[in-house]
């Protein structure tokens, strides 16, 4: 790719903390002066507009339906993309694109299984992606995807260069992730996507686990997991109750840089840049 990187965050189950992680990561990049764009591709259960408390006039759904098509083959993204960096005081661009929480829009996505429609919609997204990289000079395009194996989670993964599987450490998550890796990720890698990676999120503090983890250390556990799923664990973010149970977590890593969570997300952001 001649442009920057497209990164998709995905998980087997919901509730793994994808949105919190990706929003904080994007903001940390923008804070450092890197131009990022974060798109809400969790089309079945959108949450970014709530997270950022924004009510946009145009959603990604309109782009996919072809309502933003222009005669020159491009798409009109002016009303779709919002730059939050001036508002948040970030150095780099922090572009955001939301998807609709409207029931009809979600229903359309949910029941639209016509593969020709899907492929057309993907082409429209590819056109937007090109514009974001060329005209808005984006370094990173981050995609927050729907959990599980559904059309639009697969589509988003297929459009990305780097795939990150966010998972918690429960057996169910591990088994599901393994299956997803076999069924989806391995196929996408075969078709030219870069290797996929695992990010452990909401990880229990092993030193304080009351013996639940036996003799395991986080390092040996990650090693086992890497062997089991067949890919690298690139980050491990601890479970922090103050974030987990806060009424509205909002770019915590930017506002509280000394917090364990923030430091771990920062480490992760650097690791991802190095990949």
């Amino acid at each position, binding site marked *: *790719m001649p442009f920057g990187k497209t990164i998709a965050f995905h998980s087997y189950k919901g509730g793994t903390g994808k949105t919190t992680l990706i929003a904080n990561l994007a903001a940390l990049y923008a804070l450092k002066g890197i131009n990022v764009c974060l798109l809400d591709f969790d089309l079945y259960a959108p949450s970014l507009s709530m997270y950022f408390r924004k009510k946009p006039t145009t959603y990604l759904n309109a782009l996919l339906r072809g309502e933003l098509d222009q005669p020159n083959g491009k798409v009109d993204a002016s009303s779709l993309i919002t730059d939050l960096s001036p508002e948040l005081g970030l150095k780099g661009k922090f572009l955001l694109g939301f998807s609709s929480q409207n029931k009809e829009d979600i229903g359309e996505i949910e029941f639209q299984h016509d*593969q020709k429609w*899907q*492929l057309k919609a*993907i*082409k429209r997204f*590819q056109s937007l992606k*090109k514009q974001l990289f060329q005209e808005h000079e984006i370094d990173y395009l981050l995609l927050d995807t729907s959990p599980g*194996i559904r*059309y639009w989670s*697969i*589509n988003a993964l*297929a*459009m990305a260069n780097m795939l990150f599987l966010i998972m918690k450490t429960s057996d169910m998550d591990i088994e599901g992730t393994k299956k997803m890796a076999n*069924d*989806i990720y391995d*196929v*996408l890698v*075969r*078709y*030219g*996507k870069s290797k996929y990676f695992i990010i452990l999120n909401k990880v229990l503090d092993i030193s304080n686990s009351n013996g639940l983890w036996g003799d395991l250390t986080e390092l040996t556990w990650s090693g086992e997991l890497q062997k089991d799923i067949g890919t690298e664990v690139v980050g491990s973010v601890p479970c922090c109750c103050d974030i987990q149970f806060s009424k509205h977590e909002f770019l915590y890593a930017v506002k509280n840089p000394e917090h364990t969570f923030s430091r771990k997300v920062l480490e992760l952001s650097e690791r991802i840049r190095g990949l």
Partner: protein
Amino acid sequence: MNLGFLNTSKIDQSKFIAVVLLNLGALSWFFIINFYLADIFNILVPPRPPDPSWAVTIGNSLIYGFTIFWSVTVSFIGGKINRRQLLLASTILGIFSTILLAFAEGPLFAAIVASLIGTSLGLGLPASMALVADNTVVENRGRASGILILATFIIAFTCMAICRTLGFDTSFDLSVMVLILVGVRSISLFPLVLGKFDRSLKTVEKKIRLSATAYREFIFYLIPWFIFTIASSLAYSLISAANLAEGVYVGDTLKYVFIAVFGLVAGFMADRYGRKQPIILGLAIFGVGYLLLGFGIGELAVNIYSALSGVTWGLFFVIFLAVPGDLSTPILREKFYALGYILPVTALFALSAIQVENIGDILPPETIAQILGICLFLAMYPVFRAKETLTQGKIRERKMKEYVEKLGKAIQETEKNE
């Protein structure tokens, strides 16, 4: 043959090939014997008036009777027997009994050989078929069964073609027949000698009780299979009574070709759309064939009927090889195959061989054909009631996997163009 589909579910290809060889050695051997049974027995026991076919009838009854008896018995006491030894014994007995055919003379000897052939089949088939299910999963069991049936009928058909080329229709040569049969039966020896598998139930699983629902569903699937069996054997009697043997050669040949081809088609359909559609399609096609016979049993009608019955046989052979595996747990598989596959198929051959004498005197053949045609359509009802063993979730999962492949290719092409 591309066996790549097995990889998607992590199935060992070499094990699968071993299972196919094991089964096709027994099944093709059985089909060839069945095809030439009358010729073989007429040599062992020369026909005597007033009933020239008595020896053939008794030989048939012994083979099929022993097959049913041993398959059911072994499936019920099977847990106590080492499967590898059982399969080896069954194969060696099959080879031995085939060789004996060359030396058999007189009714007693012929009866002993027929019993040994039946015993060989009955001992080995339930475990061999259960191995197909053990080595596949619901998503690829249909295709695996399709490949098995295709391979079986290719072998059987090739052997029959060789026999025809050698002029067996006019002068049957028992010693050449024995050589061919020994060769076919020996195919099963390869996987057993090479030690590619062992169906040790201790390693398969501990005893898990099947719910009553699974048995009920199995019965729903069995009803059309049995009705088809009865209809098919009656058709055989009706056609035989019409004495069209020479004129229906084309239909008979097409029948075997269609069994092989539609067996494979059924496998793909079964894994793509489910098990029920091929059964319904098979019943409808066979019903049409039967109704056609109802308008008059002439050469054309019989040829078309034979070809259509080949389609149904192909579909049914495969689906009913997959369904018992879908519905049973490993420990119960042999019972399911003995009762749900071997019993109906063998009973059909036994019924066809015995033939209902003077069936035309009871009711006109056309009326019988029409009534049974309607029965076949009615047999669809239990299939509609039955639970689809390939669940919607599995179908959706497969569609998603295909979509990922398609999407991967499409995006790769777009990126190349850019």
